[in-house]
């Protein structure tokens, strides 16, 4: 029993305290729900039924039905897939691009390469991500895109774009840590051993730069959920009939004044809970991994 309690305490500490642990649990639950969507969703999220349209929450449809008689709960459960996939894959793309760029820039301290990379990144971050994303989708259109034999759905385009837009933030963060690390004695020691620059960067320095990056990535997951929802809300994100929390809210807007409150309250609640989860986890991780709070709260 004691061993179990100790393990629990360790787990909690690794999330940065009870609040962070609670956030991690929320996210784990959400992941489980979205993976198990086919098993736990009570209805088919796309099944249209005219006789059932706009039913209030009650037996049979716990969270009511929408204008086409589709079950709101099932749509929220399936919609979690779009939201989570977009925000998680976007962060992965951002990490894959941003971390190497930041490392290279940090290691080129004092050379023109450092200046060139950092100035361009700063200039690109001169526009908020939301506006970049809306502008880019506006320019490329919401129809499926084609590149050679590949077809990109709008969802895919959105996540690639978000990922590219995360690169400056993550690169700048990695750069700041790498700059400090590149001065460290162990780097000089490795250089004297004749180890190549790239090898030092990725196998020795990278692990020491990751803490702030992990924290920021967690917070970016929350931002991604909100941006995906916002963009789908204005009709430029996940396209109907595929359910996403954002496009559910968008169609709910037409029923706001006629009193069908459940159409907007529940999907929005799902967004808020998810964001709370990621934020709690991110704050907890920050307390643990970045006690000096070098990461400023990023406004979305």
């Amino acid at each position: 029993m004691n061993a179990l309690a100790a393990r629990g305490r360790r787990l909690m500490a690794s999330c940065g305290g009870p609040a962070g642990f609670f956030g991690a649990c929320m996210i784990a639950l959400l992941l489980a729900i979205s993976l198990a969507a086919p098993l736990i969703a009570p209805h088919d999220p796309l099944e249209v039924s005219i006789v059932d349209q706009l039913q209030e929450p009650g037996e049979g449809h716990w969270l009511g039905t929408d204008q086409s008689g589709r079950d709101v709960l099932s749509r929220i459960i399936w919609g979690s897939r779009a939201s989570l996939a977009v925000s998680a894959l976007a962060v992965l793309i951002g990490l894959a691009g941003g971390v190497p760029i930041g490392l290279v820039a940090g290691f080129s301290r004092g050379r023109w390469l450092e200046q060139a990379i950092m100035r361009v990144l700063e200039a690109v971050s001169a526009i908020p991500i939301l506006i970049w994303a809306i502008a880019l989708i506006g320019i490329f259109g919401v129809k499926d895109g084609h590149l050679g034999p590949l077809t990109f759905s709008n969802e895919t385009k959105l996540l690639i774009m978000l990922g590219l837009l995360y690169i400056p933030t993550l690169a700048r963060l990695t750069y700041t840590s790498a700059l400090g690390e590149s001065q460290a004695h162990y780097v000089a020691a490795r250089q004297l051993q004749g180890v190549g620059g790239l090898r030092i960067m990725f196998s020795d320095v990278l692990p020491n730069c990751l803490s702030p990056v992990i924290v920021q990535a967690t917070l970016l997951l929350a931002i991604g959920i909100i941006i995906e929802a916002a963009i789908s809300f204005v009709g430029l994100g996940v396209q109907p009939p595929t359910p996403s929390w954002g496009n559910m809210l968008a169609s709910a807007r037409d029923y706001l004044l006629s009193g069908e409150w459940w159409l907007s309250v529940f999907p929005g609640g799902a967004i808020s809970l998810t964001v709370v989860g990621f934020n709690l986890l991110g704050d907890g991780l920050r307390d643990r991994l970045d006690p000096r709070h070098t990461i400023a709260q990023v406004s979305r």
Partner: protein
Amino acid sequence: MLSLALRRIAFSLFSLLVVSLTLFILTRSIPTSPARIVLGDQATEDQIVQFDRDHGLDRPIVVQYGRWLRRLVFRADLGRSFTTGRDMNQQIADTLPVTMEIVVIAFIAATLVSVALGTLSALYRDSPIDYVARLIAVLGVSVPGFWLALVLILFFAVERDWFPPGGIVPFGQDPLGHLSSIVLPCFCLGCFYLAVLTRMTRSSLLDVLGLDYMRTARAAGLHPARVLAYALRNALVPVVTIAGLSFGHMFGWALIIEQIFNIDGMSRALLTAIQQRDYSMVQAVVMMFTLVFVGANLIADLANGWLNPRLAAGA
């Protein structure tokens, strides 16, 4: 201070250049040309060549960009839309003030309230007011503004008749009605930034209050209000930076909020342009956003140089 100002201005101009060039190249590299959109699928190859020549689209991108930039810089002229022929300066002049009013009011309210709340929360640490401020900070960053807007419309406009559910009453027509029609949009827009800035003020002020010179000031018998004024001057530096960023971000979120409240501002202009595939309009609106964002950051940097002369000297 002068060198800081010059450097920041140079950097702002560089940002504008990079962003505008990126947008320009992107809008010019879409497979469907404006000629196709305007003339339709039936247009002959000759007609398209003619259209491109008339609008200067047959020149190399760099030349087109140079012309566009020259007109923008020397004549403040965004040009006409290729697809609709609308004068883009006019379009911006029609929509920008509406968006600007909402953003400015939301920004001022959020900044004032958050600095007051953050200060109280830091001064009376672990008191009920601190708990309230921290609760607001957590809720504010987690609840998305557009959902808050939907819920508030349900609660205050549909269930009760306190505020109109959407649209803006012109100020000249009914000043009071105008104010009541912008309360909800401003509130929904400002909430997130209120939370962020409250948190920032609180933590920054707590850091400064714990420093040695604050203890010295108190020990020397300075009036508490005086001590607080000194502390705030130093504590506000990060708050001003974040506030500057927030202003630009609020402009972006105003797009979504305007959409919910049916307000005829920049968001309508941008989304209509996107629907009509009017790229030159998209480009113009996004340029305006960039200008506001870069300008707000520049002002924040300069304000910080004034608040804390060491920054200006060291930078």
